[in-house]
């Protein structure tokens, strides 16, 4: 059948930020299949210019509210690398706890509030309050717990307050951490088990589609890499994060205010599924058991399964948070002041796995501790070329379905990537001209 098809989803719903899906097919030939990013650009790298090292993380946190902790931690690590600021083991542990909390928060938000309505054929989570109240209450409880981690350890879950270059302005108390641990054990872990069951019941609604691609994430020899490590590709090779420009290769395309990226192939994928494919061996046992229950197998090429990988990570992070609290309390909490005395000035590069994938910041400081050049490479930007490539393979495969069905498949695909469009519209790789 020589089909004509025109799909134009203006401002796709249930994603962060503004994007449109555009598909045109003429006589059975696919002419166009794109996610167009129409969010106004925000120019963060330009704002950083001339700013003091104490302000960088405050500013970059505002790139994205959903990923604010991830941007903040990456920014702090970048500044610390550039200025030679050592941080304590306690600081690293507290930051890892925060990263776990942010991963739980973001993955739960996406899985329950943005993706589950698709699986239940509902237009949003709100009607589910009437039909699936226990599920909605559980989702809210898990989000609250993740935010408790942020509130207790960093002063506020959105745009955290206490993490600063060199450490924290306030260390949580022993009692606060004990209370948190108690909640994680008695509320968090049972809710994780129930979440796996809920997802299992819904997994039948996940479309069957495969496109093998290159998967890029951090990797670490001893742990499931979220806080740090080396960059690695499923096509082989690990790279020091300092070589990120040879991985990300960003370029400007006409249909998007966000830049695209490619490495060895036309496109690559980052995020929970990429982390799973590259690092599943380092997940704790309950997370691996959850993956098995949900049919997530190592080397999964179905991008729709990204949501399942997110749920598996929630299980891991919940349990890992208990471990971190035990370690912190075992060492005895120390009332440390942040180390803000630079030992050098120059360039630093930092990378963290934020919920949507690998994030890089790169700053150069002058010898007054002020930024002269900055670059941030954001996960959603790295995924955009891959979303387009998926759509180009998917549309011909489902072309016999009705137009609303095709549209729904495409929207679900975009949502599966959990795109953070606000984040992605200020990517650049050009240094300041007069630096």
């Amino acid at each position, binding site marked *: 059948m020589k089909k004509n098809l025109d799909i134009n989803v203006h*401002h796709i*719903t*249930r*994603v*962060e*930020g503004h994007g449109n899906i555009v598909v045109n097919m003429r006589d059975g030939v696919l002419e166009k299949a794109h996610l167009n990013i*129409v*969010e*106004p*650009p*925000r*120019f963060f*790298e*330009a*704002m950083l*210019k*001339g*700013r*003091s090292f104490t*302000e960088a993380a*405050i*500013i970059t946190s*505002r*790139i*994205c*509210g*959903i990923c*604010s902790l991830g941007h903040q931690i990456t920014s702090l690590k970048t500044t610390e690398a550039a200025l030679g600021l050592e941080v304590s083991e306690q600081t690293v542990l507290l930051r890892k706890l925060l990263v776990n909390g942010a991963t739980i928060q973001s993955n739960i*938000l996406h899985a329950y*509030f*943005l993706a589950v309505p698709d699986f239940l054929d509902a*237009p*949003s*989570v*709100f009607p589910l*309050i009437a039909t699936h109240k226990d599920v*909605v*209450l559980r989702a*809210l*409880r898990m*989000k*609250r717990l993740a*935010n408790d981690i942020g509130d207790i350890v960093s*002063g*506020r*879950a*959105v*745009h955290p*307050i*206490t993490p*600063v270059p060199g450490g924290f*302005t*306030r260390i949580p108390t022993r009692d606060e951490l004990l209370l948190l641990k108690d909640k994680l054990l008695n509320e968090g872990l049972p809710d994780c088990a129930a979440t796996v069951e809920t997802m299992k019941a819904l997994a039948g609604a996940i479309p069957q589609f495969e496109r093998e691609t290159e998967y890029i994430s951090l990797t670490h020899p001893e742990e499931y890499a979220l806080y740090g490590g080396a960059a690695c590709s499923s096509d082989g090779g690990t790279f020091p994060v300092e070589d990120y420009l040879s991985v990300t290769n960003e370029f*400007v395309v006409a249909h998007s205010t966000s830049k695209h990226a490619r490495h060895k192939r036309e496109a690559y994928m980052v995020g929970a599924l990429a982390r799973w494919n590259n690092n599943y061996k380092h997940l704790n046992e309950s997370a691996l058991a959850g993956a098995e229950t949900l049919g997530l197998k190592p080397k999964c090429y179905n991008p729709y399964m990204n949501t399942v990988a997110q749920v598996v990570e929630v299980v891991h992070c919940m349990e890992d948070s208990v471990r971190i609290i035990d370690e912190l309390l075992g060492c005895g909490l120390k009332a440390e002041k942040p180390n803000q005395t630079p030992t050098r000035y120059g360039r630093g590069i930092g990378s963290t796995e934020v919920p949507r994938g690998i994030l890089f910041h790169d700053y150069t400081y002058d010898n007054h501790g002020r930024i002269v050049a900055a670059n941030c490479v954001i996960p959603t930007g790295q995924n955009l070329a891959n979303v387009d490539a998926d759509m180009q393979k998917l549309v011909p495969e489902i072309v016999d379905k009705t137009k609303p069905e095709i549209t729904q498949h495409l929207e679900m695909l975009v949502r599966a990537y959990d795109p953070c469009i*606000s984040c992605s519209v*200020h990517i*650049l790789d*050009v240094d*300041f*001209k007069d630096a």
Partner: protein
Amino acid sequence: MKPKVAFFDFTGCEGCQLNKLNFENELLDLLAHVDLVEFREAMDETSDEYDITFVEGSISSPSCVERIHDIRRRSKILVALGACAVNGGINAMKNIQPIEQVRETVYGQDKYRFATLPAMPISAIVAVDYEVRGCPMSQPDFLQLFKALVMGKTPPTYNYAVCVECKLEENECLLTKGQICLGPVTRAGCQAICPGVGQACIGCRGFVEGMNREAMVEILTEKGLSVDEAVKRLQLFNAYEVAV
């Protein structure tokens, strides 16, 4: 009849949107009192008119201007949520650099491909009835306003400094400890949350009316900043107001 409520976002980080979903304990109760008709981040449905509209983010492109006029026409009450919407917030920092240079920094030779305007608060384009300040918008403040509007009352406003709240919270003063704190000129309403956890106020709620800018710059220079650095610090969230 329950009021029809809608949420819209312009240029911002969506942190304010997220902060509303972070009322996990109150969310279901709040929703029971309103008819949520449009909220693109979370739902597919749309509507033509709204009793109460919440707008987040700054105006920063020609298409934003068109959209906000349209939204205003269809809204009985319009509330600006968060620093970006109330006073331009962090976005306005781009205004204090020549726009050519800003574009070139980000997009290189492709700089003319995307239309952009200086970042502006919502009130620069349309009338705003109420505001919730903060970056992200302060949660207790939002809750109070939401309840007041649903009950048909006038929400509270704040025009005194964060320092006042610091005293009430019995925080140790950070300025006397040598930190660069903007509490003396910043609008209260956040319960001085930052000084409460040892971090200086960075002015995210905007300034009190008739602030004494010279005096504040003087305090900051006493703490070791140059005049240029002091002005830059004031501009962090308030570059729209403190343009030069």
